[in-house]
């Protein structure tokens, strides 16, 4: 089974891109789809209705979606394999920009809209720098020069990334992506690892303490006026 992990900010065009991928492959292979979101998601229902593929979703709720993704992905791979899927597509909400959901196997795709802002490639950290492929969407909304400026910015963050531009609603120029998916090797489910490092530690807020002030807490939060050398606050 092949694995594709798709990440990117809300409204970048992830689902539109997934629809194009499903449309391209649904008659040749069995596709399973997992959506990980925080509060609300409709993509699984939409894709099932439109293409009749296997879908599942999970809400991370109070947990960060990438954390939830790591925990449930083992189950998802088992579910997809049991359902005899040839391709598992995972769509991640990708919110805090600290992590990236990409794994050491399969294909990691970042979806960015051409109008998302020129500094976004730098701001999104690991979600861009650890991706295998960047798909720039909504290219009909900006000039060619501006598209090339955004591409240059992404390349300066991640020189090895494979870049492609599309209007995901029409699915323009995605042959190259389809080829990459087709040629990506099957995953070995016992050796799946996160590509990036998870966030450092945890803190008392994360586990639910409500008291205000430093004396009630410890963790890795920096003080407001803390000295620069003291990068991390470790509790009083």
């Amino acid at each position, binding site marked *: 089974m092949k694995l594709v992990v798709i990440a990117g900010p809300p409204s970048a065009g992830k689902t539109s891109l997934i629809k194009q991928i499903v449309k391209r492959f649904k008659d040749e292979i069995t596709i399973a789809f997992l959506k990980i979101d925080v509060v609300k998601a409709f993509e699984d229902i939409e894709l099932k209705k439109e293409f009749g593929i296997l879908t599942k979703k999970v809400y991370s709720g109070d947990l960060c979606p990438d954390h939830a993704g790591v925990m449930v992905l083992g189950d998802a791979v088992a579910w997809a394999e049991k359902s005899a899927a040839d391709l598992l597509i995972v769509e991640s909400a990708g919110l805090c920009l600290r992590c990236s959901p990409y794994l050491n196997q399969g294909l990691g795709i970042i979806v960015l809209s*051409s*109008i998302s*802002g*020129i*500094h976004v490639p730098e701001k999104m950290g690991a979600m861009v720098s650890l991706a295998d492929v960047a798909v720039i969407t909504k290219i*009909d*909304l*900006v*000039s*060619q*020069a*501006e598209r*090339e*400026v*955004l*591409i*240059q*910015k992404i*390349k300066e963050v991640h020189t090895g990334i494979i*870049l*492609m*531009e599309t209007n995901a609603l*029409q*699915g*323009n*120029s*995605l*042959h*190259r992506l389809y080829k990459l998916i087709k040629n990506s090797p099957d995953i070995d489910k016992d050796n799946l690892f996160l590509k990036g490092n998870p966030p450092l530690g945890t803190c008392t807020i994360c586990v639910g303490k409500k008291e205000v002030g430093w004396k009630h807490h410890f963790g890795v939060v920096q003080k407001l006026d803390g000295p620069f050398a003291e990068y991390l606050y470790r509790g009083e």
Partner: protein
Amino acid sequence: MIKEITIFPGIDKNGFKEKFTYIKLKAGETVSIVGPTGSGKTAFITDIELLAQGDTSTKRRVIINGEIPTDEIRYNPSMKPIVMITQNTKCFADLTTEEFLQIHARARKIYDQKVIQATIDLANTFTGEKIKRDTRVTVLSGGQTRSLLIADAILIGAAPVILLDEIENAGIFKQEVVSLIHNTGKIVIFVTHDPVIALLTKTRIIMENGAVKNILYQNEPEIKVAQNLLELDKKIGHVREELRAGKAITYDFLSVNFA
């Protein structure tokens, strides 16, 4: 170097195959794409810009010098032999004009910094209100944005194929633009509703329902009519600039001959 590009037929909006066998455009050729709005003009030049290989909604294929372009040519801006001026009159990048041009020059692998000022200077010949180096591109007017993008396409894009989507819009000095890119040995393709631009090109591609309907070549009377319209257009331009400058129009302008 691009000697020619060849476009192979795709499908119209109803899924029927286009009726031409292929369209071959040679270096130095000027072409206009005409037809009603929604007839597929922009989609036609977008296919050329993306060097489509049956993977756009029109299913057309475009080849260069008789060969299928490599991935490198299709996807690496510094290798891309095509620049396109789209209808966009807005930049979203939060950058100054100088930064925008610097990054684009890097993308196109141009390292001579003189190109930045040269591009701004050229843009300022197309627009009434001057653009400065430190003007943020997000606050440029529609006309300023297009002027900048045209100058950028000519000097930084510097490609052998130029695609221009309705440059007559947004109130720029179109005569300057047209005279500048004529006779450059490039393949220049105008999507246009402007009779002067359409009549000045050697080839006209007529679009309908998403497909190429016909291809016409400039004839003798059209060359003469184009000259006529050009004169008229200059006079209208003169009146327009007087009005834009806040001046009152006098009897002197009555000499304008609309015949």
